[in-house]
């Protein structure tokens, strides 16, 4: 079965510092990967996606992620975080039929 693992349940970081949120997926021939952000009491918003092509994917709000097939990873990075980035982040894999999510990483940006 397809699976997604987010190793860090909580990541505290100071404002303007860089951050990396880790995501690993179970190996498969083809893989489609996503990062979503969820603010309190809201639905999920797509940050970025990898379907094929360039392994470095740029998304909204200054986030980017790198698809690494050999390490089966898709880590999310931002060079300088803001207070407003405080939210829950979910890595997911899937297809047109469904998404399989990781358990999420709570990013807390400290002043």
């Amino acid at each position, binding site marked *: 079965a397809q699976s997604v693992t987010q190793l860090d349940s909580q990541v505290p970081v100071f404002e303007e510092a860089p951050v990396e949120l880790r995501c690993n997926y179970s190996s498969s021939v083809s893989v489609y990967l996503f990062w979503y952000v969820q603010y309190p009491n809201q639905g*999920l918003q797509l940050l970025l996606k990898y379907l094929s092509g360039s392994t470095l994917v740029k998304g909204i709000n200054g986030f980017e992620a790198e698809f690494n097939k050999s390490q089966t990873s898709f880590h999310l990075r931002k060079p300088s975080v803001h207070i407003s980035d405080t939210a829950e982040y979910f890595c997911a894999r899937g297809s*047109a039929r469904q998404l399989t999510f990781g358990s999420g990483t709570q990013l807390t940006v400290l002043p």
Partner: protein
Amino acid sequence: GAGVSQSPRYKVAKRGQDVALRCDPISGHVSLFWYQQALGQGPEFLTYFQNEAQLDKSGLPSDRFFAERPEGSVSTLKIQRTQQEDSAVYLCASSWTGGEYEQYFGPGTRLTVT
């Protein structure tokens, strides 16, 4: 344009009651999905529609859960004889078909069973 909307946003039900949760997808979106998100967890897939056809219901946890999309637009998730373990946020998402796979999520309905 308008995004995915869900109603009600909050629902409190007594154990044993039936509930109905509504999802209005983005106009023109062919695909519609329901997910269940327990507290502190990631969303888990429940079911998938393409137009009015329910193509995958493998994630529905029991036969108390039923979903429909009779006219290929609005969808309703119904839970019969609610149990405490049904307490969760129920998320609806919709998407175009065409290979981009991006799903647009609604704000969710928080169901609390007492």
